[in-house]
């Protein structure tokens, strides 16, 4: 399963590159920039899209699963991000994604899954696209990919709350206090953002 998923993602990446390379006409003027941007893919992006983490699907109908499905109409990318929530601690116990799109979109969602695993829903809802963009050193033309990943986690959280309308109040009632402290030190330690 994992192997197939990896193959799929690499295939999607290859496909996205071929699609944008042949994307005609209107983007004609900007395409040299896009090509330059592609060549300058940071090694972290390449690492994530050649070995994407947590690729897969969970059952949409499970009550403890929140699904976020978002798309970028300009490039025809589609991204699905799913979280499984431990109702006792309100933390994300498992997370999966599937992205059909460019390398940056795959890398952004892959990194997002690593980032939010173990977080409370509240913490995960505070993750910003800049957290992703800085970690992956995304060039300005690819910032929208990190925004898509932010939209995806927010949409997954909101879908979970829709299915579990009492989840928020339960947490506010005090059970959330027992949330174990999550060590995100290694995650937030990142090189100084490269100037755009």
């Amino acid at each position, binding site marked *: 399963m994992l192997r197939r998923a990896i193959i799929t993602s690499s295939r999607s990446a290859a*496909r996205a590159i071929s699609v944008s390379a042949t994307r*005609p006409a209107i*983007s004609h003027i900007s395409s040299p920039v896009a090509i330059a941007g592609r060549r300058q893919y940071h090694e972290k992006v390449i690492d994530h899209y050649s070995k994407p983490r947590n690729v897969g699907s969970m059952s949409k109908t499970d009550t403890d699963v929140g699904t976020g499905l978002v798309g970028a*109409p*300009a490039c025809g990318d*589609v991204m699905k991000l799913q979280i499984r929530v431990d109702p006792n601690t309100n933390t994300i116990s498992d997370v999966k994604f599937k992205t059909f799109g460019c390398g940056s979109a795959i890398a952004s969602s892959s990194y997002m899954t690593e980032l939010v695993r173990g977080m409370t829903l509240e913490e995960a809802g505070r993750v910003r696209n800049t957290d992703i963009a800085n970690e992956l050193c995304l060039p300005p033309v690819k910032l*929208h990919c990190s925004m898509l990943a932010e939209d995806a986690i927010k949409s997954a959280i909101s879908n979970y709350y829709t299915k579990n309308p009492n989840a928020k109040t339960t947490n506010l009632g005090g059970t959330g206090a027992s949330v174990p402290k999550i060590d995100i030190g290694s995650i937030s330690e990142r090189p100084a953002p490269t100037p755009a």
Partner: protein
Amino acid sequence: MHTITLLRIRLSSTTPPRTHYELFPKALPNGPPPSGPFPINLRALRAEFLQLQAKSHPDLHPISLKTRAEATSALINEAYNTLQSPLARAQYLLSLKGMDVSEDESAKIEDPAFLTEVMDVQERIEEIEEGELEEMVRENEERISKCEGKLERCFGDDDLEGARREAVRLRYWVNVRGTLHEW
């Protein structure tokens, strides 16, 4: 000889064509929609493109006009590449109306049912078995034709919102075509 003279006149004229359609008066006599149809006779377009390209070859022009001929040649290329693809043509027509669907990458898609459909199709392609490919390709080509048909109606009625929606859908199905093509 006569055609070369004509092209020199065009090259020396200072007003650039208003739309790509004007470059192909024979293949596209009625211009862009809504006056002309959205579908294009690709054979006629290609024939006229090759004629124009032959005439605008920089080597046919004196040194003083070479740069200009090169620019004309590039413009003809761009216009042809845009018009021959229904997706690029739709995006171009929308851009003429100030609606940018191919460049605004921060735009969001507000159609969960459509995204679910795209995701389902992409996931089915992942699990495709040998022998099922043809059927998937056929289904997708059907989706593409349907989109193109809707684009024809929307542009004909000057329904730009509808055309924008269909152009986005077409973008997704063309990507799916790319995925299928790689199998």
